[in-house]
């Protein structure tokens, strides 16, 4: 266990509670005893180097992937032990914003948002239309209802995906790198939506992101994950001031540190032929 890191205090208010998470994919250890709490109604940011397992963590929370050992509780339910039916019921209460929006290419914007409703609720067409238009209005794209996904810009697609994610009024939204590839204007629009959804509807949010400035504007708490473990946590500005190798590299923008600049390689001088290789 990393000595500098306080363990998250257990609380009944936690909507998501992860304990002792261990996961291996192939030969690679992704999580090696991860503990994490997400309080109800909060915006929690998760940061970490690429390939650390942030997406994998989100997939654990929704039961798309089961960990080897450890407990994942969402709203009091042990996700790792749920049956397929209960899992699907739980997923209806969780919105998931995929890294690349994942809109269904065959359907218009309107039908994309109507899709989960049509699958799970037998609503009169009139009511369905009202719900879809309300969600589109919330993300500012009511006028784009008839466009096809291929006609949308990256920021618009992200917002449509967000409208789809909130169509069942979820208790929890998981955002997987929602700002990647967005211009500053689109980034601020998405940021504003995340904040609005959290403040006005009280939706708990988990946000995987790298954009420090954006995180400081919206997150209540940041977890920094590396090498399968929690290496730092705290409020965003608190964390930025913390003085550990991880936070220095992550928030101080140092190229070298715990995450090495150099990909593992044999000794440089040896490879150039200046020195005999050790036998």
């Amino acid at each position, binding site marked *: 266990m990393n000595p500098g890191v306080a363990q998250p205090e257990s609380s009944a208010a936690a909507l998501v509670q992860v304990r002792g998470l261990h996961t291996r994919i192939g030969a690679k250890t992704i999580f090696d005893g991860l503990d994490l709490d997400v309080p109800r109604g909060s915006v929690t940011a998760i940061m970490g180097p690429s390939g650390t397992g942030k997406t994998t963590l989100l997939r654990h929370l*929704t039961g*798309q992937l089961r960990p080897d050992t450890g407990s994942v509780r969402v709203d009091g339910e042990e996700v790792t032990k749920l049956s397929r039916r209960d899992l*699907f*019921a739980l*997923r*209806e209460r*969780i919105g*998931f914003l*995929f*890294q*690349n929006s*994942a*809109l*269904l*290419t065959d359907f218009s914007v309107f039908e994309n948002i109507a*899709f*989960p409703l049509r*699958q*799970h609720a037998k609503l009169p067409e009139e009511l369905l239309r009202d719900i879809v238009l309300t969600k589109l209005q919330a993300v500012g794209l009511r006028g784009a209802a008839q466009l096809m996904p291929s006609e949308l810009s990256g920021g618009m697609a992200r917002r449509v995906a967000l409208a*789809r994610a909130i169509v069942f009024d979820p208790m929890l939204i998981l955002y997987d790198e929602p700002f990647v590839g967005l211009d500053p204007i689109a980034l601020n629009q998405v940021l504003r939506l995340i904040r609005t959804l959290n403040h006005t509807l009280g939706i708990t949010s988990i946000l995987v992101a790298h954009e420090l400035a954006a995180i400081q504007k919206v997150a209540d708490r940041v977890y920094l994950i590396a090498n399968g473990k929690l290496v730092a946590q705290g409020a965003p500005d608190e964390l930025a001031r913390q003085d550990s190798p991880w936070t220095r590299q992550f928030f101080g923008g140092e190229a070298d540190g715990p995450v090495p600049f150099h990909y593992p390689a044999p000794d440089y001088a040896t490879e150039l032929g200046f020195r005999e290789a050790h036998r």
Partner: protein
Amino acid sequence: MNANLRRNWLLQGVVSLGECGLFFVAVAGAVPKSLRYWRELCRQVWFVGAMSLVIVMTCGLFVGMVLALQLFNTLSIFGATSELGTAVALSLFRELGPVVTALLVAGRAGTAVTAEIGLMRATDQLDAMSMMAVDPLAYVAAPRFLAGIIAMPLLACVFNAMGIFGGHLVGVTWLGLDNGTFWGNMTSTVMLQRDILDGVYKSIVFGGVVSLIAVFQGYTAPPTSEGVAYSTTRTVVFSSIVILAFDFVMTAFMT
């Protein structure tokens, strides 16, 4: 190629075959649930059918024409050109109709299905569906699998009809055989049970095989552009091999 690599390659083949078998069980298990999405099934049947119709009709015409030309030469050696209609029809119904149609559908619709599903995987659409509590096996895989089974025999019938038309064009219109003999001998010799239905059974099996391979390749395609491209190629290669192999086995059992 060293022995180790070859064994690996063989092992890989066996592993994929096993995976494909398990995938078949999973898709078959999802079929009852997929009947809820009958609209999607209709759309896919229309898709496979409409996409392959032009190529199937064109090829059927030419295959029938060349068949008549070749068989006319052979039959005239024995002075049996009056049986040209029968020979063309039997070749088409029993063999060429199901096989060539299946090869064409694999190349036209099979690749499209693989690429489509591969891209859906690569852009997280399949994961998004299961996050919306919709089983992609039931919504995406099963309708496309069933669509192949339904569309293939229909397309083979179109192919056969065009082929007979082409044979008639060459035999009667061009080479001057008697129209009545052409049709009369054909209809009196070709049997519904033995000749036509056997061909239909073949088509149904080929339809299932082609669409299973296409869906499986798309489903398991690595989520990259090379991965999807490579999987579409494999759909054609594997489908062709399996179609011809199954054709031999089924013919052996039917005759």
